[in-house]
């Protein structure tokens, strides 16, 4: 049942009904603030602790707030990058690629693993070797794209999306098993310096306090932005980009106008592989590189439902909302719930958004026809 149609159904009445929850929420908030100001509720009262106390904490130490937001922002950029990998493949082939998170880990592991291997083999460590490892890793990601196309996608042309989705589950497990067998299960350290990424910290004095910013995070934000811009351009304005969008709409129709599906898929999965590599480097530089990182793929999923599966701006904005929301939630509201709420907080945010916009913030609304 299309909601657009229901909502349009009865004019003013419908509009009022839609506005009602918002009005009710506003009213409730006003009542809580009033109650807090008049002293009816105070610390220890759950309502006070949820709706008033965290905001007092924010107002009293604004620098801490800025620091938290910045950290959320950086996390959000990385979420957005993973989400972007998902969106790319989804837009371009209609495949919801569950394996994107594992591709991130796999790419990072390959990079570090190759570097270590060549280093041990006696090649001089440093920038050149890192570059060589980077090129080789790209080659591996390309080989992965070709393999996926050959082994998984080609036999599944024109299958329902849900089948392709489940196939990427299989791919995830193959990659986990293969990666761990080749590189071992031990965490590795990202070759941040050899890649020429900055490592320092700068402190800024603002709002009567200090906010410290990792240079790496700044670099991550810049690189991510550049890459997103390039990809957006590629998809919107090149011949291949147009073909990609055709493929996403219908395999059959795309084939019938002479688009070579096989090439397109290799291009898309390779692009997703590059995005995975960049994400892997950035994420690996902040923690270590191991298969435990695959949890970040699950973190990127709420970003996707928030932004909509088909929207690049959606992935970015969704990533930032989740990143910042999660950090603020954990820092200011987490203690109330006994901490660790990071694991599900993002999902709850996304779920609440979904109830109001079933196709995400920027997803395409489908008018159902029959």
């Amino acid at each position, binding site marked *: *049942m299309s*909601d657009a149609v229901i909502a349009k159904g009865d004019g003013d009445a419908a509009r009022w009904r839609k506005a009602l929850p918002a009005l009710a929420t506003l009213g409730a908030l006003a009542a809580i603030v009033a109650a807090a100001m008049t002293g009816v509720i105070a610390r220890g009262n759950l309502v006070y602790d949820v709706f008033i106390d965290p905001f007092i904490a924010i107002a009293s130490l604004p620098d801490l707030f800025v620091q938290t937001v910045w950290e959320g922002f950086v996390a959000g950029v990385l979420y957005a990058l993973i989400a972007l990998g998902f969106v790319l493949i989804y837009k371009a082939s209609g495949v*919801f690629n569950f394996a994107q998170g594992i591709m991130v880990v796999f790419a990072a592991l390959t990079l570090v693993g190759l570097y270590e291997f060549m280093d041990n083999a006696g090649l001089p460590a440093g920038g050149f070797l890192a570059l060589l490892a980077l090129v080789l890793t790209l080659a591996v990601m390309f080989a992965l794209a070709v393999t996926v196309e050959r*082994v*998984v996608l080609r*036999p*599944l042309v024109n*299958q329902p*999306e*849900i*089948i392709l*989705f*489940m*196939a990427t*589950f*299989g*791919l*995830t*497990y*193959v*990659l*986990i*098993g*293969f990666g*761990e*067998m080749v590189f071992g*299960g031990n965490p590795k350290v990202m070759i941040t310096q050899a890649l020429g990424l900055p490592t320092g910290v700068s402190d800024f004095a603002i709002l009567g306090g200090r906010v410290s910013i990792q240079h790496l995070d700044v670099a991550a934000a810049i690189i991510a932005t550049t890459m997103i811009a390039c990809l957006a351009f590629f998809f919107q304005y090149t011949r291949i980009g147009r073909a990609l969008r055709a493929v996403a709409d219908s395999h059959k129709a795309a084939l019938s106008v002479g688009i070579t599906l096989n090439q397109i898929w290799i291009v898309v999965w390779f692009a997703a592989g590059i995005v995975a590599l960049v994400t892997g480097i950035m994420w690996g530089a902040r923690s270590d590189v191991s298969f435990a990182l695959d949890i970040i793929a*699950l973190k990127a*999923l*709420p970003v*996707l*439902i928030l932004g909509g*599966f088909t929207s690049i701006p959606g992935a970015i904005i969704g990533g930032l909302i989740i990143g910042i929301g999660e950090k603020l939630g954990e820092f200011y509201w987490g203690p109330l*719930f*006994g*901490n*660790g*709420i990071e*694991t*599900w907080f993002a*999902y*709850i945010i*996304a*779920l609440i958004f*979904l*109830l109001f916009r*079933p*196709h*995400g913030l920027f997803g395409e609304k489908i008018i*159902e026809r*029959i």
Partner: protein
Amino acid sequence: MYYRETGQYKTSYIGDMAVFPIRQDRIGIALILLAAYVGIPALSSEFVLKTIMIPSLVFALAAIGLNILVGYTGLISLGTAGFMGVGAYACYKLTLAFPEINIVVWIIASGFFSAAIGVLFGLPSLRIKGFYLAVATLAAQFFLQWSFVRVPWLFNYNTSGSIEVPTRTLMGVAITGPTASLEAKYLICLTIVVLLTWLASNLVHGRVGRAWMAVRDMDIAAELMGIKLFEAKLLAFAVSSFYCGVAGAMAVFLWLGGAEAGTEFSIQRSFVILFIVIIGGLGSLIGSFLGAALLVAQPTILKFGLPAIGIPLTGANAEHINSMITGALIIFFLIVEPLGLARLWQITKQKLRVWPFPY
């Protein structure tokens, strides 16, 4: 030769609508039940019961639950392990609060608690579909998993932070806890699974099952047919979670004898059950059993099979190979036989009917 339906005429609609319309099938199912009740407990070693038979039954039950949701109603859920956990913790709290009531009653009753939670997390399915719903069910998974770790009331403030299964008896025989024999646990598992499978089979072959499949195949047409989507979907969530909950309670009380939420009810387990459903066959009860048996037995077969044919294997590598094979199997089945082992089973029966002729 012996598998022929010639001469078996159906003279009533009841006969035609039976789950096993062919006499040989009915005999076959009776033989399987006999083997399961008498043969396996008598012949199997403790190791086989503990690592293959009991977990197969537990996972088969959970897979039936998930299959009702994914295979029959077409709603993807990645929160299976979370719902299993609800069943396990509900059963634990119930048996601690009312130890005088038999544990078997509580194992089954715990399903109602996970059904309630399932309906709650199934509510978004009324508005969202497909991948969006799949991701939304992850919210259930992560939230429930978090509660199992962070709400000490659930594990009765044990210092270990996990469920410690008390000894409970049925007619004087210990069936849970460290002193219970594996045979007893196995037989209880088997009985619960057989009973619940029979009920599930009744459901999916009747009006309710038709409504679910109609929603799966073409929800708009189903609604224009007078099927209420919200009722059908929420009922599917409730029944599905009920099965998962009972499976969870069984896993802790009759198989593991204790559980740590972080590992037993993690997202990985949700995935494994989804794989069982895919490999076994979407929308097939038999498939749930076949898939569970395959995925449960696979690591053991690898561990003992590969060295037996001369390939040395370390423990860690066995795990990696297992994960790769599972992944490859999923892709293989999706490509070659999307309806899974259940379809292969059907094809075999078809071939058997006309054997020794090709058709």
